[in-house]
Every structure is written in structure tokens, then in C-alpha cells.
């Protein structure tokens, strides 16, 4: 959890033109934002571009952040979410519509770090199976509607609480819960169907 005072101080230093403070903000939040973007957009290239766009927007609008209105991480997530929605609208035509049975992505960045480093303890076929499983879930996530997708990403992958998600998505808490439930159920249904076909 972020220390409100430390973050507020960082933001003030950054607004005053302290490059080191901005670098610290980037170092702290780039991983989180990249992961949200990657899980939402689906590809590493898009995630990189979107993450950069998020930080550019943050850098320009940092002075508008009001600590009394909410946590910095919620503010950052709101910016990320808004950009993701814009991106979704722009790329509506050429959005990912390929089959879930398609081959796994060959992007190095698409793999978790734990899977990039060879694990001597786990057998090779187990590692391959884990990677395939992870890729299948990632693709299934891309099949969800953006409303459901963003809700489950923020809840189950970013561990945000319902109130923060409601603030970031600008919807009531009940709607957030409903979307998360529907998103999880839809994902479970998709994956169960997939594995039933494979079996």
C-alpha cells in the first residue's frame, strides 16, 4: 500500500521540477500500469505504447492530482483506464478476434519473469503446460467485454478494493461487484468450454 504522505511529497517535488522525483514515480508505477495495459490490450507492443501514453498524460496533469480526493494509485488507475477505453474505441475494428486455440504468443515480454527464468526444479513439460495455461487464460481475458475485463483485471490481478475500482471506473460499487461476478463467470465458462474441447 502506498504511503500517502510519501507520495504526496513526491508529487509536490515533481511539480516543482524535480526530475529525480518523477523518475521515482515512474520506477514505482511502471510495472503496475504495464500489467494493466498488457492484460487489457493483449499484446506487449500495445502495452508499452499505452504505458508510455499513461505516463505522458500523468506528467502533464500531475498538478491536477488532489490527495484529498483519493489515493494516488487510484488516480493513476483512472488515467490508465480512460486511456485503455480510448484505445479500445480506436482499435475496435482490428481487435483481437483470433481463436483461443491459436498458438501461444512468441513475445518474450508476454511471459512472466518466473517463466522466462528456467526453473530447474520443475520438469520441462510442466513449465510448458503452465505457459500454455497462462496464455490461454490471457487470451480468454481478451474475449471478455471491456467493462467486464477491466473490472476483473483491477480486482483479481491488481488486488484493488471495490471502492477504489468504483472510483476508477466511475460506477457504483454494486455495479463493480456485478461486473466482477459476470466477468469471472464468463471467463470460467470460456475456459471450461475450451478445456472440455481439448479433453
Amino acid at each position, binding site marked *: 500500500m502506498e504511503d500517502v504522505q510519501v507520495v504526496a511529497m513526491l508529487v509536490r517535488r515533481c511539480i516543482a521540477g524535480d*526530475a529525480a522525483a518523477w523518475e521515482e514515480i515512474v520506477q514505482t508505477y*511502471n510495472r503496475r500500469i*504495464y*500489467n494493466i495495459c*498488457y492484460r487489457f490490450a493483449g499484446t*506487449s507492443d500495445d502495452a508499452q505504447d499505452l504505458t508510455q501514453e499513461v505516463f505522458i498524460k500523468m506528467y502533464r496533469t500531475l498538478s491536477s492530482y488532489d490527495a484529498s480526493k483519493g489515493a494516488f494509485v487510484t488516480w493513476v488507475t483512472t488515467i490508465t483506464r480512460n486511456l485503455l477505453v480510448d484505445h479500445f474505441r480506436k482499435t475496435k475494428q482490428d481487435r483481437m478476434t483470433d481463436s483461443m486455440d491459436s498458438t501461444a504468443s512468441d513475445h518474450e515480454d508476454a511471459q512472466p519473469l518466473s517463466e522466462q527464468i528456467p526453473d530447474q526444479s520443475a520438469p520441462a513439460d510442466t513449465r510448458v503446460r503452465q505457459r500454455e495455461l497462462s496464455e490461454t*487464460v490471457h487470451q480468454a*481475458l481478451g474475449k471478455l467485454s471491456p467493462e467486464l475485463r477491466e473490472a476483473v483485471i483491477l480486482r483479481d490481478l491488481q488486488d484493488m478494493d471495490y471502492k477504489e475500482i468504483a472510483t476508477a471506473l466511475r460506477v457504483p460499487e454494486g455495479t463493480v461487484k456485478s461486473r466482477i*461476478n459476470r466477468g469471472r463467470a464468463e471467463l*470460467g465458462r470460456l475456459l471450461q468450454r475450451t478445456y472440455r474441447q481439448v479433453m
Partner: protein
Amino acid sequence: MPDRTKNDHTNNGIGCNEFDLLLSDALDGVLSGAGLDRFQAHARTCKTCGPLLEEAEAGRTWLKGLTEVEPPASLVSNILASTTGVDTQRLRMMTRAPQPRISWWEHVQASYMEPMWAIVRQPRFAMSFGMAFFALSVSLTVAGVKPRDVLQISLRPSAIRRTYYNTQARVVRYVDNVRPVLEVQAALRGIKRNMNPAEPGPSKQQKERKNDTTQQPEQKQDRNYSQTGEKLILAGDPLGPSNRDLPVVSVTTYRRFV
């Protein structure tokens, strides 16, 4: 298919709408006691909510199994470059591999001598150099310059200074010698002009003066727009000048009365 809008169709004290609201709490593990019992009882008996709970639970498990992905190593430096426009020295050091130290001579060799040598080695350069040398030697031979003369050139400072003064004195002498000739030429030109004062100007000037209608009345100026060559053609007269338009010249003859 049970009606999800209907409250408590399973008679467990909980309706489908309430089940929806409690579903996330149940999955998060915050539901307990009698509430949890009612929730589970409804899930067991409701044909819609039971599978929904299963699917949501499965989806949540799948999602929790996804691990965080590692961002690319260049992401931070790219972000800093695109925001502050400054790629900090520290970041450059982080992203770049350590370079082995090289001496200044190796640096000069790598930076200047190697590229130059690469150019010199090209056959095109060798051919151009040969042609230039041949042309220069032919020119010097034609000009009467011998290699022996070139070798005799002294490059000492006193010799260079003496050469400079000698050249300067030669230029001054040449100008002094030429000056009387120029003065005589100028005088002759003046005399010639005085002898022929009424020289006609160039014919071009006359022609220009003929076409110059700035001093004429407006009517005549308009007519002159259709003038071609020496002949005056009026725009309003298709047949050209007629006798009636010709100026009447009165000829007066003087008889000599003898």
C-alpha cells in the same frame, strides 16, 4: 428456467438478486454464519445460481493463477525520454553494457584512419588520384615548370619575405608603366567625341521614342495598343487605313513669276 427477478423461489430465505450481491463477498471469504448457509443453500437448489457460483469460482481461480508480467527493460528509459526528454546518465549506464577502455591511439585509428583507409582502398579513388596526377604533371610540363625549379624553392621565412616584396614591387612597376598608356587612350577618346558631336543615337532608341505615347492624348494612346511594326492599324477599322483617314496634306506650289 427459474425467474431470477423473483425473490426467494428456492425458499431458502435468499433471492437470486441477493445471491448476485453476495457472490463476490462469498468468493472473497467475507461471508460467514447464517448468511453463508443461506447463500450455499440457494446455490445448491437454484439451477441458475449454482452454475454461476461454480463458473465465477473457476474464473477467479484462473485469474489468480496469472502471474505478473515483467515490463521490457527499456520501458522506464523510454518513458523518461518521452516525458522529460532527458535520458539520464544513470539510466544509460543501466541499459548499456560496460565498454572496454581503449587508448587514444586506438580511438584515432578507429574513428579517423580506418574510414580514410577504407576510402583509399577503393579502385575508384585510385583511378581518380592517378588521373589527377597525370593532368598535373602534363600542365606543369606545358607551363615549363621543371622539378628542379621546384626543388630550388626556399621555404625559409627570409626567402618568403623577399619573394613577397619582389612580387609587390613588380606589380607596382607594372601599374606605373601602364598608367600613361591609359591616360593617352582616354585623351584620344575625348578628342574623337569632340570632333563628332551630333552622332545619331542607336535606332532602338528612336523606335522606343516612336512608341512612347505618354505625352499624347488618351485617344491616340488607345490606338497604339494595336500597332504592329511600322504600320498603324486601327482596331475599329477592318479594312485598314482608308483614304478618308489619311491626313490631308496641302501642297502649296510657288510659281516663280518671271
